[in-house]
């Protein structure tokens, strides 16, 4: 008896000593939460979770590869306790919710008649499921069976509907779904989601440079949930008021209704919803993720900078905006005239963004007043450079420095700041883009008698928005097409008196697909004007690179168009902590392009701040189209007229800068929202119950 006791004591002591020694020698740091989580698992080491034992499962929970509900025995209390432990950490405190990406359901046809067991997993092994849509929901409800909290049911339309109040974000449904329809995401993940080739996207949503979920917000407008619609837009676009007014809406060109009928007036609906918020007098609260403790500097408060700052703030980072101009807004404020985007509206919108806790410093110029060194010293871990393209190209002809000769953006910007410029009576605006049209219409409103627009091609080739061209025609701007200025002529006092131009004719198409204008020899013509504004394009002003005493910017590479060189997929510049988007990276482009790329830069900056590799979005769609979603005919459409944009009559426009375009009244917006087919990748709701609608659509 004694010997047995002594033996066991001895062998126990040896084992104990060896283990305690080796635990010192072989010590490896381990997250303390692993032990905490393990204490809340069942402890049966049953392996029912698919992991080898409880400690393996706990480790998987802590490093994020398993969800708090991983244990099949521990039940709801255990799951909640584990979720609470994981919630202690600021990084994962963001609540997760299940989110369904397919709204096709029964709208999609069946490819075959299925008689197998009622399980999505089994059915997906047979040609990827019965429905014609390759990415859509199969509808047999594996997610419903997987949910232990009764939060999902298959709705009457044949796709799962998640009850957000019951969902704990355990992720069981995501694991059960064979088609990636249902996903558990955080707010940050949803904000940083970019269109991918496998997504269920309508053609309009694929086209929108900001990647707004257009069918969703139109549907919300249809249901009268205007505030929800604004929230949907704000998931992708922080400036709906501005965009609703100035966006040339490339989405409408791809509208499926537009194939058979007039496209849905998407942009006016956006404006309607966002104006509804502004006019309602109260701001819709904007949700942000918990603070990350990281700080980012955004240089340039234009649409790209505001968008980047907005999204960085919403995913939890601290953001400060620096701008060279007296107020934020960039080209929105100084490039777009009051009659298109009233300053009052812009102020309201920008204030909403700043209210999220973003600080702004205006009237400080990057390079002149502060540099990269001072930013780094102040604790900014990444820099977004969205300085825009503010330098006008010059015509390169004689007389551009005369009294009465201006450049486009410079002119608009001085007018916007209220500077008193001595204007003449007749003016020629050279160029055919939006800046040129803006200059011409601004001049007309400033009391000039005649404004000519001198463009070297024809109206068809004008790059300005069609609505702008129509409006300027209505307002009485005179167009001089096929004309290339050669000389600005002055009188003895150096005052502009005439513009000389050569007549052109169109030749062969050039690289841009537009027919190249060729001069007609000896066709010099004189146009009597006392002002000439050249608005033939802009480039970024890289002067900040020269004012760089500590040589920090020397590695920043520029392209030959003076734009900041970056990786087009991640928007990271040649200095790793600098990211750039908007006009300063692409040259002059749309506001909505700047907004979309501002968000893309925010994603890259977020990855950079977290220390993860800054990689592009996998299978990113980025302006490409999903071929199967582009139809040539759309059966089941009944023609209905598109809502007409209300505008003030021409007679009232010309003596003031008041806004020309008005917002749709509610009943018109309702009617317009009903024109939307609520498209998805290949599904849509036809107007009529056209029996062959589904079969014939491709």
């Amino acid at each position: 008896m004694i010997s047995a006791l002594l033996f066991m004591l001895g062998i126990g002591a040896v084992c104990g000593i060896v283990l305690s020694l080796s635990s010192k020698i072989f010590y490896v740091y381990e997250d303390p939460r692993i032990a905490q989580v393990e204490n809340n698992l069942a402890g049966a080491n049953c392996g029912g979770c698919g992991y080898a034992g409880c400690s393996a499962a706990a480790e998987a929970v802590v490093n994020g590869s398993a969800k708090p509900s991983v244990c099949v025995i521990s039940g709801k209390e255990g799951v909640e306790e584990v979720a609470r432990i994981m919630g202690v950490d600021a990084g994962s405190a963001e609540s997760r919710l299940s989110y369904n990406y397919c709204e096709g359901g029964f709208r999609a046809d069946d490819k075959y008649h299925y008689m197998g067991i009622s399980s999505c997993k089994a059915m997906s092994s047979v040609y990827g499921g019965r429905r014609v849509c390759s990415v859509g929901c199969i509808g047999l409800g594996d997610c419903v069976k997987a949910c232990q909290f009764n939060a999902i049911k298959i709705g009457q339309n044949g796709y799962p509907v998640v009850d957000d109040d019951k969902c704990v974000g355990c992720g069981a449904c995501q694991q059960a779904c064979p088609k990636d329809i249902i996903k558990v995401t955080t707010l940050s993940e949803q904000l940083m989601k970019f269109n991918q080739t496998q997504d269920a996207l309508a053609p309009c949503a694929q086209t929108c440079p900001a990647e707004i979920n257009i069918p969703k917000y139109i549907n919300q407008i249809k249901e009268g949930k205007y505030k929800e619609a604004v929230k949907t837009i704000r998931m992708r676009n922080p400036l709906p008021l501005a965009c609703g007014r100035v966006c040339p809406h490339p989405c409408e060109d791809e509208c499926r209704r537009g194939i058979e009928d007039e496209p849905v007036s998407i942009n006016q609906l956006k404006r309607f919803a966002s104006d509804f918020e502004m006019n309602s007098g109260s701001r819709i609260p904007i949700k942000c993720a918990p603070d990350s403790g990281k700080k980012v500097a955004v240089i340039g408060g234009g649409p790209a900078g505001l968008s980047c700052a907005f999204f960085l703030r919403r995913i939890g980072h601290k953001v400060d905006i620096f701008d060279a101009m007296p107020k934020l807004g960039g080209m929105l404020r100084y490039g777009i005239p009051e009659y298109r985007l009233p300053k009052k509206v812009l102020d309201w919108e920008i204030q909403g963004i700043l209210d999220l806790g973003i600080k702004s410093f205006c009237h400080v110029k990057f390079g002149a007043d502060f540099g990269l060194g001072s930013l780094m010293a102040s604790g900014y871990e990444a820099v977004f450079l969205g300085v825009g393209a503010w330098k006008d190209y010059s015509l390169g002809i004689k007389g551009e420095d005369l009294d009465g000769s201006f450049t486009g953006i410079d002119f608009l910007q001085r007018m916007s700041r209220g500077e008193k410029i001595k204007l003449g009576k007749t003016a020629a605006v050279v160029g055919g883009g939006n800046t040129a049209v803006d200059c011409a219409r601004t001049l007309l409103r400033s009391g000039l008698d005649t404004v000519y627009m001198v463009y070297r091609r024809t109206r068809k080739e004008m790059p300005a928005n069609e609505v702008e061209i129509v409006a300027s025609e209505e307002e009485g701007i005179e167009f001089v097409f096929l004309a290339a200025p050669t000389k600005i002529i002055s009188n003895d006092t150096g005052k502009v008196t005439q513009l000389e131009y050569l007549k052109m004719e169109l030749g062969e198409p050039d690289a841009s697909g537009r027919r190249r204008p060729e001069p007609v020899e000896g066709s010099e013509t004189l146009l009597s004007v006392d002002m000439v504004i050249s608005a033939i394009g802009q480039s970024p002003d890289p002067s900040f690179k020269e004012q760089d005493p500590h040589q920090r910017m020397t590695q920043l590479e520029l392209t030959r168009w003076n734009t900041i060189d970056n990786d087009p997929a991640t928007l990271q510049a040649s200095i790793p902590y600098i990211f750039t988007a908007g006009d300063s990276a692409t040259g002059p482009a749309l506001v909505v392009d700047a907004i979309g790329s501002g968000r893309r830069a925010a994603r890259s900056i977020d990855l950079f701040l977290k220390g993860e590799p800054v990689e592009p979005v996998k299978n990113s769609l980025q302006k490409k189209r999903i071929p199967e979603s582009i139809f040539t005919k759309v059966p089941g459409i009944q023609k209905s007229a598109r809502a007409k944009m209300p505008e003030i009559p021409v007679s009232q426009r010309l003596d003031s800068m008041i806004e020309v375009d008005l917002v749709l009244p509610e009943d018109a917006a309702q009617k317009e929202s009903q024109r939307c087919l609520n498209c998805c990748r290949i599904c849509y709701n036809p107007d009529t119950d056209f029996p062959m609608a589904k079969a014939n659509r491709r």
Partner: protein
Amino acid sequence: MGDLFVLAISCIFINNILLAQYLGNCPFLGTSKKMETAVGMGMAVIFVLVMAGSLTWIVNEYLLKALDVVYLQTVSFILVIASLVQFVEMFLKKSIPALYAGLGIFLPLITTNCAVMGVCLINIKEEYTFIEALVTSFAYAAGFALALILFAGIRERILLARVPKPLQDTSIGLITAGMIAMTFMSFKGMV
């Protein structure tokens, strides 16, 4: 040499630890849902069993027998195997992280695995020499891995089959295991 080969074959097929002796059922059902897990578990069992089999043989021969406390066999083996697994886990984690990443998560599961304990006790009962004990330990473990991987393959298929509701998951698993065991009975008489 030939004897050792026969011994190994009989341990892998005829006396398969899972299907003939029905030891180690918890990981057999628990870790056989996914092929990936099954392979990992199989490898971990091979690794630990070879070490445990030789260590317990040494403990038995030079401690228990020498001190004439053979009746403490079971108790002391539990202690030795548990400590060994813990030690190996710590060692791998620090020194060979790559191997730990592959096997590490399965190791704690083996601490309380009856298959390991069973093989160690069989080695002593059959009075094998050290080399024989080493070979049987390896062979039993290989048989374990073989059965587990076979079973995982079948279970992955069963997931897609039409199974009556009361028989789903573990029940159909046990029935299948029984049927595999019956087929393994046909190896009897091979040696």
